[in-house]
């Protein structure tokens, strides 16, 4: 794609760059800004006036826009596939385990994330009903969905070649594939490989803390004699950005095989001992010595 225009801005705490073959009309730019503002007003946990802030304060019923139904379905599926590890109730789960407002550090019983969703929340279609105060956190898929919504807006406005890049969560449409570098988890000046992005979404997730925090790194498994290593970075390619975003997080919590049973995607996982795992259909390259 010959880039005819780039629309660059900051929103929801991240840098956005929208490259299009045909420069964006001012009214399309304004519509994008409005779309993002509306989404933020719905889900931001950091805004006292957001819809989720109201749920956190007193629970109750929240009627989301139509796109809320897809988000709920995705979260329900991943909640099931990760045995409750991936949940929009992260805040409530932590509270359950003692990280409550009083910092009691006293678990209110054995960790039981699977019950937490049922007890706390009904998410039917676009309607969320919270039984009591609930901290709804859609951070693992929300940014991806917002990228999809922006992409939909561009398509509706007649744009056929574009890349929406919300700091690493990307959606591409058009005839020409892009080569995307996979950023080294600890060195933003380096890449560990590249992938071809063509007509779908690419999302990344990385965490050094999540990897060492469980104390498992460089521990030898006595049964197999192999090193126990944990995931430190993931990339996912999928048809839509919401799914790619969520799966990039899910690959920290579940085996790719489990997720592949219900989702179509390509992936790269990098582990703490420096080896990598990737889908056989991955169109890309990982750098080797």
């Amino acid at each position, binding site marked *: 794609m010959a880039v005819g225009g780039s629309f660059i801005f900051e929103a929801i705490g991240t*840098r956005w760059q929208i490259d299009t073959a045909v420069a964006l009309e001012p009214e399309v730019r304004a519509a994008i800004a409005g779309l993002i503002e509306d989404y933020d007003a719905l889900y931001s946990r950091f805004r006292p006036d957001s819809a989720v802030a109201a749920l956190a304060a007193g629970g109750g019923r929240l009627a989301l826009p139509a796109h809320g139904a897809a988000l709920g379905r995705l979260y329900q599926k991943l909640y099931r596939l990760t045995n409750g590890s991936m949940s929009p109730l992260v805040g409530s789960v932590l509270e359950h385990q003692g990280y409550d407002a009083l910092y009691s550090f006293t678990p209110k019983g054995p960790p039981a994330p699977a019950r937490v969703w049922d007890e706390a929340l009904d998410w039917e279609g676009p309607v969320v009903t919270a039984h009591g105060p609930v901290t709804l956190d859609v951070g693992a898929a929300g940014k991806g969905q917002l990228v999809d919504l922006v992409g939909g807006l561009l398509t509706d406005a007649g744009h056929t070649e574009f*890349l929406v890049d919300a*700091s*690493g969560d*990307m959606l591409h449409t058009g005839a020409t594939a*892009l*080569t*995307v*570098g*996979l*950023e080294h*988890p*600890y*060195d*933003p*000046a*380096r*890449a*560990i*490989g*590249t992938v071809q992005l063509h007509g779908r979404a*690419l*999302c*990344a*997730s*990385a*965490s*050094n*803390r*999540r990897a060492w925090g469980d104390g498992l790194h*460089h521990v030898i498994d006595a049964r197999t004699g192999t090193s126990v290593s944990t995931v*430190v*970075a993931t*990339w996912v390619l999928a*048809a839509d950005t919401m*799914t790619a975003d969520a799966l990039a997080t899910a690959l920290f919590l579940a085996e*790719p*095989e489990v997720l*592949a*049973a*219900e*989702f*179509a*995607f390509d992936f790269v996982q*990098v582990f*703490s001992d*420096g*080896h*990598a*795992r*990737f*889908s*056989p*259909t991955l169109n*890309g*390259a*990982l*750098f*080797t*010595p």
Partner: protein
Amino acid sequence: MKDLEAGPADTRTRSITGKRMLHALAAASLLGVAGCAGTAPSPGSEPAGEGASSAPASSAAPEAPASAEPTEAAPAASDQAYEDGDFTQVGSYVSPGGTEEIGVTLTLEKDVVTAVTTEPMPSNPTAKLYQERFSGGIQEEIVGKKLDELKVDKVAGSSLTSGGFAEATDRIKSEAKL
């Protein structure tokens, strides 16, 4: 959104040591970097350099072909916004487990970033040990290649360190501003 053609059993684990799948690399200068060039040029009040005594300080660019406007203390290039030299700053970013730091060194020459180096600086000793091991591992197995030696259209990665990188470059911008 149903099953992948490649079934579950097909996912391969490979410790990345083979030569397979190596890309041909072309040079490309990716890092025009975080807007180090640009922004309102403020004709500096002092020329670059620490040893000011020997420098013709504040002595208006001598044979500047009268471009009329630069009044007095114009440094060598009157519209240069940043001092030349190496600048190092530390940026921080919040990971799920706490705050981490990253060191960034930029070499500036006529408002252009000519070199970038970064250094992970985990504050937590466990993380430090861990990161060193990881870095070692990645050099031996997966090789991190410099982005400015790669021909890529985009970069996708952890927005964690990128935030720290941006913070450090912002500090350098204000430090190097003439």
